[in-house]
């Protein structure tokens, strides 16, 4: 059986530290757009930490929810793309072929999770910031849609390595950049086709739910909702 990569996001662990955000930028050659462009709503963050308040001062709480591409199995962004730039690969990833993208932005409208980002201008990298570029990830130019790829370059590298060594991939052998960095362990990545993987087991948690489930997108990202503390639980 092939792989079906998925992620579990534990909202009860997430601390809103944004390490995932910085890690994703560093891994995926995501441009910074600068203050003017950011103020026009053009900042690119393949993963973001949504923050919602509940209640009012002083009885107030916050919920953090890291949101990245949900890798929908029935992805609304795919059929709308006229050029197959957005398509489902054979491991169930919503892949984005930058070179095929002609910039209709239709996919970004169709995506209910707002995780697709458009290059409104050609990215500018003040030298020598460009020396940091990850050579495994292509750069995107003006007019192209980009988004979280589940760090497909890491997936492919690990698969190729395992294949060369004639062995199956081990659970947790590699991780996307955000998962690898996440200090609180709120992000868990793995193969949903492997019933013993951590991600498979956790995705069956009673706290588990998928995001905007009612839309029928069948995401491969499962959220474990924030827990509450009950005195009895620990008594």
């Amino acid at each position, binding site marked *: 059986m092939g792989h079906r990569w998925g992620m579990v996001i534990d909202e*009860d662990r997430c601390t809103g530290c944004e390490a995932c955000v910085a890690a994703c*930028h560093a891994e995926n050659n995501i441009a910074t757009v*600068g203050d003017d462009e950011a*103020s026009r709503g053009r900042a690119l963050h393949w993963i973001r930490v949504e923050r919602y308040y509940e209640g009012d*001062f002083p009885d107030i709480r916050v919920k953090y929810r890291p949101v990245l591409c949900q890798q929908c199995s029935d992805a609304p962004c795919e059929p709308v793309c006229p050029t197959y730039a957005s398509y489902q690969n054979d491991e169930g990833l919503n892949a984005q072929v930058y070179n095929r993208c002609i910039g209709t932005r239709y996919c970004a409208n169709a995506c209910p999770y707002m995780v697709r980002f458009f290059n409104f201008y050609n990215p500018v990298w003040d030298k*020598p*910031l460009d020396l940091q570029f990850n050579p495994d990830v292509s750069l995107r130019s003006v007019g192209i849609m980009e988004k979280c790829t589940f760090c497909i370059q890491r997936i492919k590298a690990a698969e190729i390595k395992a294949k060369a060594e004639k062995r199956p991939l081990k659970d947790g052998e590699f991780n996307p950049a955000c998962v690898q960095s996440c200090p609180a362990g709120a992000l868990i990545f793995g193969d949903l086709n492997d019933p013993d993987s951590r991600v498979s087991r956790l995705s069956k948690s009673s706290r588990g739910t998928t995001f905007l489930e009612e839309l029928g997108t069948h995401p491969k990202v499962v959220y474990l909702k924030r*827990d509450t503390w009950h005195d009895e639980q*620990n008594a």
Partner: protein
Amino acid sequence: MDRRNFLKISAVGSATAALDACGKPERQLIRFIPEEDLIPGVAQWKPGICTQCGAGCGLQVRVMEGEAEVTRKGQLGLMSMGLAKKLEGNAAHPVNHGKLCAWGQAGLQVTYNPDRIRFPLRRSGARGSGEYQEISWEEGIKELASHLPQSKPAGKHSAVAFLTEPLSDHRSVLIEKFLAAIGAPPAVEFEFFEQTVLRRANELSFGHHQLPTVDLANTNYVLSFGADFLGTWNSPVAQSVGYGTMRQGRPGMRGKFVQVEARMSQTGANADEWVYARPGTEGLLALGIAHVILKENLRPAASGGDAGEQIDGWSKGLPDYAPEAVAKLTGVEVARIERLARELAAHPPAVVMIGGASLAQTNGLANALAANALNGLLESVGKPGGIFFTPPPPLPDLANRKEGASVAALCEGVLKGSSPVETLLVYSANPVFASPPAWRVREALEKVSYIASFGSFVDETSSLADLILPDHSYLESWVDNIPESGTMQAVASLGPPAMHPLHHTRAMPDVLLEVAQQMGGNAAKALQWKTYQDMLQAAFGSLRSHPGSITAKSADDFWSEVQEKGGWWGAGSSLSVRTATKSTVAVKASVPRFDGDAQEYSFNFLPYASQQFGDGRHANLPWMQEMPDAISTAMWSAWVEINPQTAERMGIRQGELLEVASQHGKLQAPALLAPGIAPDVVAMPVGQGHENYGRYASGRGANPIKILAPATEAETGALAWASTRVKITRVGQPGKLILFGGGVREWPLEDRRR
């Protein structure tokens, strides 16, 4: 011309000649022969240490071949070299267990920052004009040596001062030895968010002049007084790793987390119960809770131990801190105080933390001692799920370091003329930016006749320097680190250079060694190592005889393995806590004093360490500027957080420019309506408002430090940066507030006022 140079030039000669004709300067770069063997496309992982904050997390640096413009012997050219491409946490490191925070991730942009100083500079214009001219390293070192005395002039103060960020590694040893040799006083360490108060409190309560390590992974109940322990305080990655386990890492067991503060921080936002207490009354609340525990006999007073004995009236059951009295002063209801006390007692192990604004008050030490005493009472000191202190590795040089004066004292001495400074060396500290105006740091520095900076960047302080000898970045140099907290093991981390330097820079310790050699005399005698690497090799060599993570047959093997693993960690973990120095102080918790009349200056002003910029040092990293702050979602901005009801009352709208005025200055920043802040408190992140810190940071937002009162914590003299009061007026024009996030409620229809 040596042979190597000759080869280089002939190797590229014809190409260069051809390209010269093209007339484009960038085409005229010569090509250097690579200095290392690399297979293009194949990543190498090299250990390192994150120096983005004091926590000292271990790194794994992904190095790959690439083409860089580098400077070699003053000559600009192209070279194929190993370049750091990505930073990951070192999975074997006892502090961060393979994880990194956002600052750690952004570390690459320090090395590759376009605003780095690329070669030694000598001031050519007026001071602060920013006019410099390039000089050679030989000239620079000679010049610096000529400004340093061989020894202390007899009967007089030394006129040399060394200003640095707090260091916990062999650089501090080197600096100390160097200064001692020339008869100069110990280095002045400066950091805005200093931890003096907490270290002092821990010394009094537990006998450790050290930051605590919190065993969050095993605790069942966390009570934190203002400690931003998941963001910027102490050892955030270590604490976040533990926190994750505390929440969901133990089947069937989920700890409760209560945060007490006046402004909901990124950390506080995670609390199961968020408690508002008036700023500076955290100690009162802690003792109020202790009172209930004692009164209801949930724990005996004796378990408070030394920490308890520091508190006035402890053995009598803290009669002055009955919940009714405490409730009045703190604003926390009686029932809640009682409930928190009972919950804490009923869910061992429970742990108490204190940090941030709670300590930056005039009564900060008392607050810390109160929290420590509560920890003692809960029997969570030196126990799993409690607090303890990271044992130091057996490195004798680091054991007994002398403390230097404070920046405030240094400046006072210079301005009054009581202890003038002729030569000031500055390393990675920026007090001109990060000190309250009353300290007059800039004025003081202007009175210093010669300033040399080892900065990698021009900032507000190093722009006053007469000589700049730029340091390597931490990925380009030998680094070591002894974590003060964050682990139960003794740790000595080591990071060999992950890549060759890009620019014509030199590591500060190596420069100091060279200066010492040039100077001869005491200095040369005291600093006998040729390079910092030699010094580290010698120091780490001594660890071989101690039980730890590395056993090696020979010293060389040991040395190479320490390099490979990224450090040495002691065998086993230590939960031991010494007994306190028996100097019982009988502290009373009280309300703090604030600077500014409560009528006129009606808001408490709360600066806080920014999730993006820390104390401002990361403001020159574009990734940090554009990373949305978790609470405000702001990018590239500075802002004033104000309660929405207060804002409505004052007619203040989101993003509108406000003037914030204290008795010491005023600034303007856009309003951010933050539902999680008390109605009479306004807060501002520290970090923006740089005048001179490269293209990404300069001229952006306002610096809250510049309106702070010079108030100090009563016992330690540390800056009480949370004790200023301000007034708010509307400027009447929109401010520059750039938000990534739109709505603040998940169900917007709850709030139809759109």
